[in-house]
């Protein structure tokens, strides 16, 4: 029996520069291959090279066989014929992968009809069945904008697998999902090899790899560092990089030392917050003290971000009070954002942005440079624009920017969810260090229970307001 995917000496080049590879592997029907590595390690390039969806500026070398057929020499049109029929692809961010103007049923049924070539009636039946098995009943006529992240992922799964392609490529399938949905998607993926299919999953999370099992590749900056059985590698990594990846899994973090707490800086009493006319939660109380590390967790959609806005005074609460300590200056509360590039004016150099803030608050530029140094940022980086530095660097610069106004409270809204595990760990560690040193209270919003447990002094789990459904 031939292998589903065979890859021999695959490399991806941008001009003369090798971005990834060489890697070789093969996956058999019923098998699983997990590709792990930090952001920018070139994991996605493997998936794109196999599919043939590399950006025009990039070039793949090596041999790729799909179901024993040489795929890399096919014309783009021939290659596209494999999609959906031989290889199914689960998208990274399912919300954005669904046509915003088409109802979910239509997006699945068109795959049954036009890819699997079922008659309209059969396609409808098959779609109905898929919706039932994936417990999507009731969501048939919803538009993607009305689907939750998990539902969108399942709709995308149903659409991608409609033609029963034996191979499934899943690129970061759990990105942005909360813990509960996270595991549901992994269950779904794990079924693929059990049913005789082939799974190629790309992830940066060791926990995902552990659950999926099978074989594993570990990539670092495009180079293969380790290859073998997943369980073996996870249990006994031979490479230090693999080890650090595993260490970076919040599950493996050491528990942080409790902070020394100062005076109360923010008091919240009986707060309820609404989005539109919908009350998200109510009866929220908080007493935040200097130097405290607080984690806020809860399922997505519960209103964690909205709560931060209420704490920052950006949003009028529906009821209740948010009382700042009188010692708190007007700019005493600062925020860190989930997507660091989105938090900077993107056409202005970083130094310009930082100098604006420093000038406004009469902060000595040397002090800013000092913060940057502490955060491991070279001043040379400041001449770049936000999109020219990495996400981890930018998040650290945004911490430095916040420190420039000498805040007492830092509200961090999933500040590391877009960062890879190693950077995430470093960044959160630095944040903790700064909180301790400057006696700053930090409220960290995260969907990862492990992070909350390991990093924070205390954790508040938000639960939905009773009257709200969904």
């Amino acid at each position, binding site marked *: 029996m031939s292998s589903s995917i065979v890859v021999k000496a695959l490399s991806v080049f941008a001009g003369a520069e090798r971005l990834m590879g060489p890697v070789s592997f093969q996956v058999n029907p019923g098998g699983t291959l997990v590709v792990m590595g930090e952001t920018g390690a070139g994991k996605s390039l493997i998936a794109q090279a196999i*599919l043939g*969806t590399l950006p025009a500026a990039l070039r793949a070398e090596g041999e790729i066989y799909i179901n024993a057929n040489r795929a890399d020499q096919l014309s783009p*049109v021939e290659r*596209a014929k494999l*999609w*959906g*029929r031989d*290889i*199914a*692809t689960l*998208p*990274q*961010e399912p919300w*954005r*992968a*669904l*046509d*915003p*103007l*088409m*109802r979910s049923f239509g997006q699945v049924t*068109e*795959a049954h009809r*036009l*890819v699997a070539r079922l008659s309209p009636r059969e396609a409808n039946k098959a779609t109905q069945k898929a919706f039932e098995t994936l417990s999507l009943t009731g969501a048939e006529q919803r*538009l993607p*904008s009305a689907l939750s992240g998990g539902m969108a992922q399942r709709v*995308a799964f149903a*659409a*991608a697998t*409609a*033609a029963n*392609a034996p191979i499934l490529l899943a690129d970061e399938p759990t990105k942005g999902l909360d813990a509960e949905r996270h595991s549901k998607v992994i269950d779904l993926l794990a079924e693929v090899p059990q049913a005789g299919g082939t799974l190629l999953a790309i992830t940066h999370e060791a926990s995902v790899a552990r659950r999926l099992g099978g074989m594993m590749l570990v990539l670092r900056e495009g180079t293969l560092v380790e290859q073998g059985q997943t369980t073996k590698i996870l249990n006994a990594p031979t490479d230090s990089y693999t080890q650090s990846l595993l260490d970076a899994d919040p599950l493996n973090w050491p528990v942080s030392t409790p902070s020394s707490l100062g005076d109360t800086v923010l008091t919240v009493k009986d707060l309820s917050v609404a989005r539109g006319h919908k009350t998200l939660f109510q009866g929220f109380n908080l007493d935040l003290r200097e130097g405290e590390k607080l984690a806020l967790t809860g399922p997505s959609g519960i209103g964690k971000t909205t709560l931060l806005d209420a704490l920052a005074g950006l949003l009028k609460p529906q009821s209740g009070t948010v009382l700042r300590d009188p010692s708190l200056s007007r700019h005493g509360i600062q925020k860190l954002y989930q997507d660091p590039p989105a938090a900077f004016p993107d056409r202005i150099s970083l130094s310009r942005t930082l100098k604006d803030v420093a000038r406004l608050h009469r902060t000595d530029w040397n002090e800013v440079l000092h913060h940057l140094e502490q955060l491991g940022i070279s001043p040379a980086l400041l001449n770049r624009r936000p999109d020219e530095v990495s996400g981890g660097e930018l998040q650290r610069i945004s911490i430095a920017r916040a420190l420039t106004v000498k805040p007492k409270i830092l509200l961090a809204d999933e500040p590391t969810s877009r960062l890879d595990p190693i950077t995430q760990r470093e960044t959160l560690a630095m944040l903790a260090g700064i909180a301790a040193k400057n006696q700053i209270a930090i409220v960290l919003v995260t969907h990862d229970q492990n992070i909350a447990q390991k990093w924070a002094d205390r954790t508040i789990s938000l639960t939905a307001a009773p009257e709200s459904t969904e």
Partner: protein
Amino acid sequence: MAHYFKSVLTVLAARGLQAIIVAVIVGIVSFAMMQALPGDAAFRIAAGRYGYDMMDAAAAEAVRLELGLDAPWFVQLWGWLGQLAQFDLGNSLVYGTPVVDEIATQLGYSLLLAGGAIVASLMIALPMGVATGLNPDSLLDRICMGLSVFLRAVPAFALGVVLVLVFAVQLKLFPVAGFRGIENLILPSFTLGIGLAAVSNRVVRDAVVDAMNSDWQLFARTKGLSARLTLARHVLRNAALPVVTYVGVQLAYLIEGVVIVETVFAWPGIGHALVHAIFGRDIAMVQGTALTLGLLYVALNLCVDLACRGIDPRERAV
């Protein structure tokens, strides 16, 4: 379904309100400006009526007497508003015929022309925009960009005569001018349409580029749909949204372009009538025409709104 109707009603109400605001503003502004015009209205009206061979001071005096132009402005404005409330636009000062009659015939022709122009512009802009949108930054894209700039800079009348020379005089495919039949509509429509397409093909292009760069486009491909099916089922529909909205914006410019094209092609339209009415100081006609054009714009935008709603099932605020 119910909330679809609700949203349609919202649109209707919003546009209805706009129509009333437009009617009042257009009426008052056009009246005020006509009052502000220098020169003696009686002379202008007499000129419009009798032509330069027959017009003289005596004719102007007769006109003044006949039309009561000496009445103070508020009496005249009040009279017009009073008539308007009874849906009476009054009589043309120049021709003496009811304004409604004049507009009724001409509006039909202008609507035909405007409709033809939109169809023509879409016939050009869509293929051009989709082709360049699928190949952004290609040679084709650059050529089309240059062409767009060129067509934008060529005045409509020059474009019109060139089209006539090529398609009517040389190739004898269409008549030169007049309005005998549908074949007469083609050249004026394209004259206007090319001017509109010069900009809208870039809007289509940008919309297609955005759609082609979207994650959902890639996903539609990787789930197995062919490039053609993806284009037809997903890309075009999504790209249509900004395009349709833009057509709404273009309508305002279209209504003006109509004037030139009507003149070149001897087409009996409302834009032409408006220009003559302004020259002839035919206040009743100016107000009537401006009002009609304003309401027409509102009505056409209503169509655009409804079309958007048809394309986009998401509930959106107006």
